[in-house]
């Protein structure tokens, strides 16, 4: 009769799991100090007075906390209006991107239409041209359409697909088993229904990624709004940030304070979307066709 020796405490699965979790926690914590320090620098600068910023050597923690910098910075220009403008553009961009790119990507991933591969290469190749070489002809084009000084040049392209997102979503969609599609086809579903009922739910994490990326992209875009908007009342937050940079001297405290504020919506967006992201569906266990 063999008696199995009672496992030592450090051999149990529970201990190993706990150990693994603790190590990971410590590693992440250490890493976050590294990652956070530039951000701390930003926040620290935003709370200093201009005189303290001009000091040498620079101080790590502000001597006095000037929270008023935030209010003052906001008041120096019509930032409320600009924030609303930027929200509008970014939300439109986000909606359009998710909607249109998922349609186009689905076609490239699952619909076997003639010329698909060749067209996909064309899609990819549009990513290869540096933007500013086509910037001037595009500006002239939009100008002739009468779209200058409107938000149209900034929003309409989002509804016309972007190679980056098409490629991204296509990769995700190609990971979804063809059997699911075929089963649905046999049930009489057309592609639109498959897209809506099968693809979208199954690629939720990817869609959220596209939503976050596209919102960020529009939110942080400087050149687009700058080029196409002439009316100051239509400006966006990114243009507003530039007002703190003088030709001789930059108002660092305001610039950093405003940068922190401009950062917030995007951070919040990410933080709250995480829930849908991580609990997003698991391909094999979810659907029943």
């Amino acid at each position: 009769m063999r008696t199995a020796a009672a496992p030592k405490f450090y051999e149990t699965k529970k201990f190993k799991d706990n150990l693994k979790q603790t190590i990971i926690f410590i590693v992440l914590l250490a890493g976050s100090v590294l990652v956070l320090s530039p951000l701390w620098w930003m926040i620290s600068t935003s709370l200093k007075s201009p005189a303290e910023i001009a000091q040498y050597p620079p101080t790590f923690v502000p001597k006095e906390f000037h929270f008023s910098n935030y209010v003052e910075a906001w008041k120096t220009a019509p930032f409320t209006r600009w924030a609303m403008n930027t929200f509008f553009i970014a939300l439109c961009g986000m909606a359009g991107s998710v909607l249109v790119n998922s349609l186009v990507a689905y076609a490239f991933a699952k619909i076997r239409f003639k010329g698909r591969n060749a067209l996909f290469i064309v899609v990819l190749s549009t990513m290869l041209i540096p933007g500013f070489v086509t910037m001037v002809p595009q500006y002239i084009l939009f100008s002739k359409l009468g779209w200058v000084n409107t938000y149209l040049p900034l929003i309409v392209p989002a509804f016309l697909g972007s190679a980056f997102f098409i490629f991204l979503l296509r990769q995700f969609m190609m990971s979804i088993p063809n059997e699911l599609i075929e089963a649905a086809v046999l049930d009489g579903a057309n592609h639109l229904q498959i897209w809506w009922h099968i693809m979208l739910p199954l690629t939720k994490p990817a869609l959220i990624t596209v939503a976050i990326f596209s919102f960020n992209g529009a939110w942080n875009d400087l050149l687009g709004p700058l080029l196409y908007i002439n009316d100051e009342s239509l400006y966006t937050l990114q243009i507003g940030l530039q007002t703190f940079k003088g030709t001789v001297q930059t108002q660092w405290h305001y610039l950093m304070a405003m940068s922190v504020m401009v950062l917030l919506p995007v951070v919040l967006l990410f933080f709250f979307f995480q829930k849908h992201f991580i609990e997003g569906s698991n391909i094999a266990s979810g659907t029943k066709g």
Partner: protein
Amino acid sequence: MKSYDTTIARRGAGLAEKKEKTSRRRMSRQTRENIFGYLFISPWIIGFLGLTLGPLLFSLFASFTDYNITSRMNFIGLDNFKRMFTIDDLFKTSLWNTLYYVLFSVPLTTAGAIFLSVLLNQKVRGMKFFRTLYYLPAILSGVAVYFLWMQLLSPSTGLVNTFLAWIGIEGPAWLFDPEWTKPALLLMKMWSVGGGMLLYLASLQGVSASLYEAADLDGAGVMQKFFYITLPMISPIIFFDVLTSTIGAFQIFQEAYVMTENGSGGPGNSLLFYNLHMWNNAFEVFDMGYASAMAWLLFIVVMVLTIINMKLGKKWVHYEGGDNK
């Protein structure tokens, strides 16, 4: 899975009947596929034909001219290209700088993002905060960030060298030393590796837990699970990331433009990237024809690399959906 097999088998039998009936209908399956396909991609086609193709062709034509945006556009044949290779020394410098950056940044950021996302996919306390934290650098964009980093990289009082000093290393002069300017940018890029992490996190969600459970039962270790389950399952995204990072890295511009004086390309032209050189030619010298020629040359280079990548991709990318041909 079993239920599917029987369903398909049964349906398959019925399908044979349906097929006969279908071929008698006017629209074949292929035609229907074609129609749906083009319908679905029609927004992109409209965008491409309407907004992209025109300017693209225009810039292609411009590369054979002396176009200066505002007053002239005379055909000069291959002069711009000749200039690139024989007269313009900075062309080679800029190409080299960009290649250096691509060669280092793509592997580093891809590996970093994968590593980070695996780490952040664990069930550890406070994960939500950690994820947001690591993602933060990726959404901080714009000029403020570059200025931030210029301070952080300052040789004697910047945080970077301060940290290095704590572990006994004397940090270099970073943005002031031609040898260290590009590594400085690589460091900056690594800081924002959280952006790619997002992609991989999304992809990791789709890897079925049952695969890992089965591997555990077989006694697989952490490394084996990583290399034989995780990596292959997320390989479509790795492929995407490598490809798009490469394309993006070839186009590095903003950092060098802001962080070097007047966009000049830094000490000893060490930060004169290809795109920066192009920009200077377009908007400082107003030789847009030459800049367009540079852009299209880059296009060809990256296109070739992309095609190579795609052919290689067939070997190691695994599409769970079944389209592995």
